[in-house]
């Protein structure tokens, strides 16, 4: 099923709702390991996107570029910048297209993962949002319903990494204490992917 601009707008609405719903949960999860503003970052970013939603261009690449800018405008926090980086990566690939071919989704996600890895100077396996994207990229590359595969992949990533220690950023300071705790960035990506895919 080809993804159109209207479908993108619908996904934006659902993600915005999810971020308002998960506002306190994400702040609390982030507060346990970092500075406690992840819910704020995500809600602000999505509110900024919602505000200009109706003016988004038909060119899906340019539309995603403007979504990336909304994140960079609304926050200086690293998660907001990483979100913008992932969106920019997809924006560059899709520039000039009016739709997204589902067959291209694994590559779009993998491209975002790689660019975010470069920007955040983090490795895969470090219990970060990169691992969630890595799971989504690999799961959607297989035959089957891509929306369902993506939603299952974000759950599986959280489960697989829950009992590992954080290795990146401020959470790293907590070392073994972070074992058993979910990474806040992975939790946010779980909400985003599930809302985007309507699962």
């Amino acid at each position, binding site marked *: 099923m080809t993804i159109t601009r209207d479908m993108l707008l619908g996904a934006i609405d659902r993600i915005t709702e999810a971020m308002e719903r998960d506002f306190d949960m994400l702040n609390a999860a982030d507060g346990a390991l970092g500075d406690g503003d992840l819910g704020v970052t995500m809600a602000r970013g999505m509110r900024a996107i919602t505000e200009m939603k109706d003016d988004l261009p038909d060119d899906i690449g340019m539309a995603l*570029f403007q979504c990336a*800018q909304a994140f*960079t*405008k*609304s*926050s*200086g*926090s*690293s998660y*907001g*910048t*990483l979100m*913008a*980086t992932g969106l*920019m990566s997809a924006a560059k690939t899709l520039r000039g297209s009016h739709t997204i071919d589902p067959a291209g989704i694994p590559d779009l996600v993998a491209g975002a993962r790689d660019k975010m890895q470069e*920007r*955040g*100077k983090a490795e895969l396996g470090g219990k970060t949002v990169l691992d969630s994207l890595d799971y989504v990229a690999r799961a959607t590359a297989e035959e089957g319903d891509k929306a369902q595969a993506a939603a299952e992949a974000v759950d599986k990533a959280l489960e697989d990494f829950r009992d590992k220690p954080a290795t990146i*950023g401020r959470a790293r300071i907590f070392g073994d204490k972070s074992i058993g705790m979910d990474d806040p960035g992975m939790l946010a990506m779980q909400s985003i992917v599930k809302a985007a895919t309507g699962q």
Partner: protein
Amino acid sequence: MKKILNKPEDYVVEMLAGMTAAHPEYYKLQGDNGKVVVRATPGKKGKVGIVTGGGSGHLPVFTGYVGEGLLDACAIGDVFSSPSAEQMADAIRAADTGAGVLRLYGNYGGDVMNFDMAGELVEFEDITCSTVLLADDVASAAPEEAEKRRGVAGMVYAFKIAGAAAEEGRDLDGVTAVAQKAADACRSIGAALSPCTVPQAGKPTFEIADDEMEMGMGIHGEPGVWRGKLQTADQIAGEMMDRLLADMPVASGDRVSVMVNSLGATPPEELYILYRTVKARLEGAGATIVMPLVGRYATSMEMTGVSFTLCKLDAELEALLNAPCDCAFWSVR
């Protein structure tokens, strides 16, 4: 810690409003959210733009050094936190006169990430950028991991030297190369006696006993090399010089500028007591001191303590250091 403020969340915006109101001949606010400071008199067409950015709480770094022969624009974040990529993009747009823009800033994760992102944003608008990262704090990583070091007061030398090169009319590659040379020529170390309090956090960045000091601490209260009993001025200055000279030896005939910088609360009297030892050590090694800077150049709010920066000069760097510059906090004529 008592502070003079209204609402903690208005601290930065009100500080910028006051600073630009007090010095309208130097500074102007620009950008959507009012946290970009630009030169009141823009650089002339065809001059390479120089931008920096970083958290508030370090005045005169960063915004204070916007001025002729120094920086063209600066994006400023909340106290000790990075400005957004979009603010940095606004600063780059403001600094661009068509000859490209050098991003010159400290090696901090959030700043690096956001300035890289800002570069991609302005690429869509055909503005060319280059980057030089300041990483002069010898205490923040060992020499074999020098690329991980943080940028501290040494950035003032880099601003001055890059600013002079841009004013001279050098192109982006030329300004970038000499800024890198200045960055490579600087080494800094700090020592702290008391912490500071970030307004929105409302409590000190670290705790330290009244009779203790910390050697090598970072500008945001990052832990230092050691913590122990408070030493005499001569001992403190002696160890700081030992550590700097071990990292960048100085030989007979070398020409070196040196900065003895207050982290905020340490008074000029104590800086001058320290400077005696600094001068004796450098001259004892046969070096000549050029333009000693003793005062408040790069601070961490009201932290008590001091940093030393050495900048080893060749003829090119020395000429650029001596070129005229003017801002509210420092001028060379």
